[in-house]
């Protein structure tokens, strides 16, 4: 294998000299370190490879000392590494030295894994040396992944529970088209069996019946989209149509009518979102608003969108009593609910989703005759065209 920086005076393969006493002591200290430590020379040849590194990469030091450090990197890093070290030595421009960052390592069995690497530099009588301290990020990544999984599970559960709560009302909604469908068909059946001439109207009635069947299917489809468990996604979308669908879904599960004033902002930039998750926020906010306003004489909510520096804001304002000052500090915490049947998850999950999208969910608490106003803020999608959209 050729070294990365061919230099005429570099020995092709340095003969490892036996360590001196102080070197031996240093090595034994390095071997007790929990972090991996690799020291390389100007030619990226490994001088020191401690015990932690042996475990991390699955190779004994004896096999790697004297070889190019590329050995423990996946191929694409190895290529760049040549360029980095070369350019640093030529120009002194630091890409990683003294900074530390996340890179990838390659185990002897071929596994590529994430590493946190910080690099220091030392001038020695034998020339410049680079000291790399490495930490295996897999345990941390695993717990991050577990957390993300759990969060996803919770988000899904909350959606299911929202549907469950709306379930009775949705059953009612399904009953309507089913009733109409049944009656249309029975009307035709009766006329037919009694020999009544229905030729002129039957087409019309069948069309209406089909329309009702379609309506039932549509209700189920919207519910299913909302409840099914999926991996989080990102799509570049216009926010307003998503909001309108979510409002429809919420109203499906609503027994009492409420006035909804809907205003759409003009020229809103698209957002990069998981559509179902964003709809979940809208459902939560609108349900809360409807519940909050249900006690007043003329319940009404305003749902507005507008552009706001570099993003889009959705505001859901109701004319209920607003949020009690004592409830405000814990409002977005899980299990903070003032409702008999509430789980107190709606806002906690909504804010988590908003923040996972690089946005936020904030509240203007209102009170003294003014209702609460929740604002969902989402950053505009980056200008790059997105083919998954």
């Amino acid at each position: 294998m050729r070294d990365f920086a061919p230099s005429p005076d570099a020995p092709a393969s340095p003969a490892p000299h036996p360590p001196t006493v102080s070197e031996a002591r240093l090595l034994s200290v390095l071997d007790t370190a929990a972090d991996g430590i690799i020291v390389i020379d100007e030619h990226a040849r490994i001088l020191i490879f401690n015990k932690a590194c042996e475990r991390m990469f699955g190779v004994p030091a004896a096999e790697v000392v004297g070889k190019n450090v590329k050995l423990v990197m996946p191929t694409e890093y190895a290529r760049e590494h040549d360029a980095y070290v070369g350019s640093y030595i030529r120009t002194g421009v630091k890409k990683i030295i003294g900074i530390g960052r996340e890179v990838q390592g390659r185990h002897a069995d071929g596994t590529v894994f994430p590493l946190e690497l910080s690099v220091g530099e030392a001038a020695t009588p034998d020339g410049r040396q680079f000291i790399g301290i490495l930490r295996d990020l897999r345990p941390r990544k695993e717990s991050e992944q577990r957390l993300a999984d759990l969060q996803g599970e919770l988000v899904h559960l909350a959606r299911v529970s929202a549907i469950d709560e709306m379930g009775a009302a949705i059953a009612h909604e399904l009953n309507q088209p089913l009733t109409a469908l049944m009656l249309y068909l029975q009307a035709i059946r009766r006329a037919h069996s009694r020999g009544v001439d229905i030729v002129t109207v039957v087409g019309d009635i069948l069309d209406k019946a089909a329309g009702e069947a379609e309506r039932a299917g549509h209700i189920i489809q919207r519910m299913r989209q909302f409840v099914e468990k999926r991996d989080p996604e990102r799509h570049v979308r216009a926010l307003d149509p998503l909001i309108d669908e979510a409002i429809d879904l919420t109203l499906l599960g609503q027994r009492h009518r409420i006035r909804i004033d809907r205003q759409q902002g003009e020229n809103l930039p698209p957002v990069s979102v998981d559509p179902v998750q964003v709809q979940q926020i809208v459902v939560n906010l609108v349900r809360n608003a409807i519940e909050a306003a249900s006690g007043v004489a003329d319940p009404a909510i305003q749902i507005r969108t507008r552009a706001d520096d570099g993003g889009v804001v959705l505001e859901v304002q109701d004319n209920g009593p607003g949020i009690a000052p004592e409830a405000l500090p814990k409002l977005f915490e899980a299990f903070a609910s003032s409702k008999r049947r509430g789980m107190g998850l709606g806002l906690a999950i909504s804010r988590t989703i908003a923040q996972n999208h690089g946005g936020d969910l904030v509240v203007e608490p209102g009170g003294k005759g003014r209702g609460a106003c929740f604002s969902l803020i989402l950053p505009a999608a980056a200008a790059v065209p997105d083919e998954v959209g």
Partner: protein
Amino acid sequence: MRVHVVEDDAGVSDSLALILRNIGHTVISYPDAESLFRAPLPQARDAVIVDLSLPGISGAHLVRWLLNLAAPPRVVVITGQSQGFIDHQLRGLVPTGLVRKPLDVDAITRVLPAEDAAGSPA
């Protein structure tokens, strides 16, 4: 018989009118309680079919009002809601009939007998 139908769902209202005419009734449809109040009073020999979930004035209010008339018509409640909701809404009111959605023609003729020549459905 003259049947007044108070139902806000256009599909249900239309199909119900169709089947009621089909079995020999005269049908007058209203989308809400308010429009029934504006129309001539239902007669004692009429029937009124009331959907329990109405926009504005509730179905239960309308039922109470109808049953309290000097000469009350027959009052048939239709609803797709849960038993709990029905009990809560009707508290103490006893309509002539209660039919839960989804409806079919047999359930309707059981409370409002057919008046066409054929009598009951084929």
